[in-house]
């Protein structure tokens, strides 16, 4: 069971804790040169949303999702027709692991929205920030992801 909701740490603490891992992820996806700009963009996006976070759960998953989406944006910008990069899995704990496997076939945005909503229990404001979209779009992505999963089930 969840204890009292952890207070949100000062951004400095959050940044120092996750910067190396985020840079590693971005370098693997984008290469050394493009990773530096994406690194800055990732933490600026996080900073923009940081004071609206309602709790401090899953901050690592949150920032990694932001980083992945920044990487996706860079890929889209730099090779419009190219295929999407393979998303690395967030290693870890029970609910989202199962969801990650289950949602494997979904389009990236829908998959991210479903995993963040139902695996990490983030609200749509947080998800919107992670995806670089609006709360309404985040809600739509999650619900169309769920619909797609249901349809896949029933046609299987």
């Amino acid at each position: 069971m969840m204890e009292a909701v952890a207070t949100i740490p000062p951004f400095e603490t959050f940044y120092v804790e996750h910067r190396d891992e985020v840079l590693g992820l971005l370098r693997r996806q984008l290469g050394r040169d493009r990773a530096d700009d994406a690194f800055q963009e990732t933490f600026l996006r996080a900073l923009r949303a940081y004071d609206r976070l309602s709790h401090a759960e899953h901050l690592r998953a949150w920032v990694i999702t932001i980083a992945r989406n920044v990487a996706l944006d860079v890929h889209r910008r730099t090779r419009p027709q190219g295929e999407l990069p393979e998303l690395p899995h967030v290693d870890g704990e029970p609910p989202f692991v199962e969801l990650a496997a289950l949602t494997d076939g979904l389009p990236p945005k829908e998959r991210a929205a479903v995993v963040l909503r139902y695996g990490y229990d983030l609200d749509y404001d947080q998800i919107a920030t992670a995806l670089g979209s609006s709360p309404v779009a985040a809600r739509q992505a999650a619900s169309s992801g769920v619909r797609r999963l249901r349809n896949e089930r029933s046609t299987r």
Partner: protein
Amino acid sequence: MTVTPDLDRRFRDAAVRADLLDAAYDVVETEIGPLLAATTDRGLARLSFDPDPEAHLEALARLAGPRILRAPRALDATRRELDEYFARRRHAFDLTLDLRGLPDFTVRVLGELARVPYGQTATYHDLAVRVGNPNASRAVGTVMNRNRIPIVLPCHRIVGSSGSLVGYAGGLERKVTLLRLEGAIL
């Protein structure tokens, strides 16, 4: 994968440029030791003889919000004015101050404190009289002791009625150094 100092600094600078921080801090080296300086969009909020950020982050977050980052660039003006002060080229600070959250009495006492000129001293009782409460010397002492922005708000210029230096949150040695620097004592 380790973030290089250069990449790290570029992010911190960008955060300041994008105006996304509730508070920014840095450690400023001075001749009386390292000081932790923290600023918000309203002005300088902290200057502390305890340079360990951990000692201040929680209180800063309560004051200003959680978007707190070490960002040297945001403290450029503070650093420059302190450098000038310690080089005896500056007698008054032009920095705006963030005194949010302080009780009314404290703000009035600090307002009077700010008017005690460079190179001079006043007594706790003097300040009490100036805020219209001659019996409040002890309360004035407490305000001096808890001063969040020493040096800029010059609590080192406040001494006992007998002329004794009494005390200083940063240690008496620092109080003596500052008063000597200003030529208030030999």
